[in-house]
């Protein structure tokens, strides 16, 4: 079980979402991916995608206009 950080700061839609989809394919079940974003659309579409895929997902506001989406590849 490992934890990876995916830096999507300064990236606009749909780049963060596509990066997430590519990265999670490399991970094993049980691994955790922390996605750093500063694009408010990504704070909607990344969790939406994670929930649709059935992954555990949490959104945290870390600073003004900065968020971390924590996704566990739970299946």
């Amino acid at each position, binding site marked *: 079980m490992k934890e990876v950080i995916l830096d999507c*700061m300064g*990236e606009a839609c749909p780049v963060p979402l596509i990066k997430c989809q590519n990265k999670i394919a490399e991970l094993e079940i049980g691994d955790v991916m922390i996605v750093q974003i*500063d694009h*408010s659309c990504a704070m909607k579409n990344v969790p939406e995608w994670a929930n649709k895929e059935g992954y555990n997902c949490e959104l945290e506001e870390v600073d*003004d206009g900065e968020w971390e989406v924590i996704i566990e590849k739970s299946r």
Partner: protein
Amino acid sequence: MEGSKKFFDKITQTEFYQMWFKNAYSYVTGAVLLSILQIATLASTGEPWGVSGVFANWGAWIYEAFGGSVDKWYYFSSQGAQNTLNSGILNDPGSYRNMGIIVGALLATLFASQFKIKKIKNKKQIVAATIGGLLMGYGARLSFGCNIGALYGGIASLSLSGWVFAVFMFVGAVAGSKLLVKYFM
């Protein structure tokens, strides 16, 4: 200072702050608001809602401020375009609307305390933004409207042109996505 911090901390915890300022409105809420406001725009100004045409006028006014003249330009040759340019930016409803969008977006992000000046990550972003902006602006003028004036306004006034615009915008979006994945991922 300590007192005011406490005051604002308390406000940001309230349900109303969360609902009105912090959380994004639903797509349905946004669609209903847009529909009502575009009817108000059409009723009060006599013209459907548009965004990008105004930027062309802003360009013309800036050019004129530096001593240039667009009188002979084909794009501005109609009587309507000349009237808009001659009566000035302070008498142009579209200019107020666009300034409202810019100031409103700034206020919304400040109220939600989500304002951030983003870093430019790499040179590719500058190149893509410049080329993309020029193509979008030029394309919007060629087609007499952008996704607001030509698509939204067109469909809302039951014009076939809006649907034609929609089909080709979709084709453009597919091509754009392919380029994005090829050069940005």
